[in-house]
């Protein structure tokens, strides 16, 4: 299936009480040419040596068949064993993740608005989301109605199920619809409402990717840096980040400080430090996710910001600022919301430039 693969570390088991098994799992994010087909695979190796080789072999020989079977089955997950390997294939984790990753700042802050000092600019964020929403509507005629149609059902609708609804079958435009729809319903259940939902669908990948790098990843691109969060070293990919919205997001919880001299109109390259978030006195770097021009500040200097919050808009060269998210709406879905696959939010970018570090 011409898939590229990336081996990522498993999400570390954070909960002390949890049983140990999943810790040994190695996750594979497999990206198909159409990012909407992205699937997450976790592989438990029986032995370390030659693991990369074995993974490559399994990916080539076994995966396509498995993918087809999973697709046909309507199940959310499949597992097979061969030799010492256990291969678990799970449909994209179609949580409102994509939506919520982007929606989270909006909605969380919306709630926080009245109470947090320096919240004046917070009102601006939902507005931004709203703008995007409007934009999404105009560019994704097929998408938004679906979202709207679903929204009343909000939390009550099991629509976000992988494979649970016919729309959710991986592949093609149908998936896009369903991603948007679930984002819509997520938004519906939050204060930010409709504004956040479709916005999420449109721009989640970028926002998510950009949001992830902590200050220390400053040098990386949005896509690469995110992957670095879970995959030190194994993903040299994609200073591309041509995907999606040119918004630099907060790497931490703290107080936002724009970088002196980096004001509106100044050219910034991907990876440039364009501001800071002061977290307990330590400055975490806010990094430009793409090449562009510094645009609007989405938070004021000194404002309290949360993790992942949009801080600085970057206007892309030769494009109107809001064009970014529009034509890359579909890839957002690949973000799938999992740690192992969350980097695949960066995936679209990665897939586009075929930078995969391992195999094919």
């Amino acid at each position, binding site marked *: 299936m011409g898939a590229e693969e990336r081996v990522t570390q498993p*999400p570390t088991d*954070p*909960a*002390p*009480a*949890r*049983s*140990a*098994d*999943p810790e040994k799992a190695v996750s594979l994010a497999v990206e198909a040419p159409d990012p909407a087909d992205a699937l997450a695979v976790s592989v438990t190796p029986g032995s370390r040596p030659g693991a990369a080789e074995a993974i490559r072999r399994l990916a080539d020989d076994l995966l396509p068949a498995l993918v087809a079977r999973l697709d046909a089955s309507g199940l*959310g997950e499949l597992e097979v064993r061969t030799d010492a390997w256990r291969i678990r294939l799970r449909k994209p*984790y*179609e*949580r*409102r*993740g994509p939506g919520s*990753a982007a*929606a*989270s*700042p909006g*909605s*969380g802050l919306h*709630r*926080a608005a009245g*109470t*947090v*000092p320096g919240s004046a600019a917070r009102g601006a964020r939902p507005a931004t989301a709203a703008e995007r929403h409007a934009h999404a509507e105009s560019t994704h005629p097929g998408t938004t109605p679906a979202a709207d149609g679903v929204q009343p059902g*909000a*939390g*009550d609708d*099991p629509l*976000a*199920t*992988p494979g*649970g609804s016919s729309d959710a079958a991986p592949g093609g435009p149908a998936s896009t619809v369903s991603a948007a729809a679930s984002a819509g*319903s*997520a938004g519906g*259940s*939050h204060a930010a409402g409709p504004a956040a939902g479709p916005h999420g669908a449109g721009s989640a990948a970028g926002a*998510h990717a950009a*949001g*992830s790098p902590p200050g220390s990843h400053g040098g990386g691109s949005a896509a690469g840096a995110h992957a670095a*969060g*879970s995959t030190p070293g194994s993903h040299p990919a994609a200073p591309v980040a041509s995907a999606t919205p040119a918004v630099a997001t907060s790497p*931490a*919880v*703290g*107080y936002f400080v724009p970088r002196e001299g980096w004001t509106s109109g100044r050219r910034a390259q991907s990876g440039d430090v364009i501001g800071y978030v002061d*977290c*307990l006195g330590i400055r975490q770097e806010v990094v430009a996710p793409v090449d562009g021009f510094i645009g609007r500040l989405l938070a004021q200097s000194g404002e309290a*910001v*949360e*993790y*992942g*919050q949009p801080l600085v808009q970057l206007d892309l060269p030769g494009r109107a600022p809001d064009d970014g998210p529009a034509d890359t709406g579909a890839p957002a879905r690949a973000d799938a*919301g*999992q*740690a*192992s696959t*969350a980097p695949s939010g960066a995936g679209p970018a990665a897939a586009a430039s075929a930078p995969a570090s391992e195999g094919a």
Partner: protein
Amino acid sequence: MFGKILIANRGEIALRILRACRQLGVPAVVAYSEADIDTLAVQQAEEAICIGPADAKRSYLSAAAIISAAIVTGCDAIHPGYGFLSEDDAFAEMVRAHGLTFIGPSAEVLERFASKATTRHLLAEHGLPTIPGSGLIRDDAHALEEAERIGYPVLVKPSAGGGGKGMRMVRSPRELEQALTICRSEARAAFGDDSLYLEKWLEENRHVEVQVVVDRYGNAVHLGERDCSVQRRHQKLIEEAPTPALGPESRRHLCESAVQAVVAAGYENVGTLEFLVDTEGNYYFIEINCRIQVEHPVTEMLTGIDMVAEQIRIAAGEPLGYTQADVDPRGHAIEFRITAEDVGHDFRPQAGTIEEFQAPGGPGVRLDSHIYRGYEVPPYYDSLLGKLVVHGPDRATAIARARTALAELRIEGLETTVAFHRAILSHPVFLEGGFTTNLLDRVGPAAFVAAARD
């Protein structure tokens, strides 16, 4: 009382703490990771703040993210819940250094009780019987020597541990030597500390724990005990109170000696002392948990005391305000931990969508859960979906209510332990109150379920 509390946890306990804050009239902020935006606590909170990505190391385990979140939202106290940073004395110290209050024991108290081996020694000095065991193991030769003295079988345990990780039971010197290497590396990986100690292995035992509440001024009560003998690989599945293992007199004696010892040792806030009870009814102190526990609702059902509210009040410096004579546990309560695990596949944790959810109801039925229809169970965290707690005037009534409630409870979309709990409820050993901690592991959960159906 506090001006505003940051809830630095997730899942059902975040919701539980939020409820306690509301009942106390204290505003609260829910701190959440990106993966938890859809969780019920976040939805219900007046205020919520995203502290990091799904990876707990950068969210729920990040002291800096949590403290910064408390500061920027104007909180003056942090409730850590259970797990994560709840018993981390360095975190508690850091919270204090930023002018905030850690809701739990002070950093000094946490530090004093951080090592299991030291704690055992300390509480033994204050009169609690402990299982024959070693001090911290210096090297293999020392371990072999100590094991010989204690007598096989022995249990190798990490000093910094919890949750059953890094523990091995061995029956011979040869097994011990192998286990030492494994346990050290497991303990190092899980807790960053590979110090081990040995303990006499009680072949058949029950896990009974005593709930204590101690204010800053040395006023203390116990809230009775809980029996947590239904376990699988040291993970509790069902907890109940009172314990069927001991008579009223033994229970009173156990609880009173526990609370006396822990006060004498300088404990503060809510805490749980865990004991093993052998087949003769002898009890041995094993460890203390310096936090609110998952199974605290069992005690709440019996005593009517809101333990999370107590915890918050005590941390705010309020005196206890009542004495042991005012604590009047009534009836029998049982808690079932409902987890997203596939019992048929070795309790493999599940992630996915809750496609159908119907909560049970009726007298004496309580469900503490953060799930709802459409909720996506994320794969990153503990697989606990909720806790079903039943209460009745006696054990038989509680069991009858549990049956009804477990029949009503519907969670679809992923595998859960609901059916497994139903099976346990029809097993004669449970019905007789004879469960021991190794029963499920010895029999195997699958065989157990099969036997229960007959």
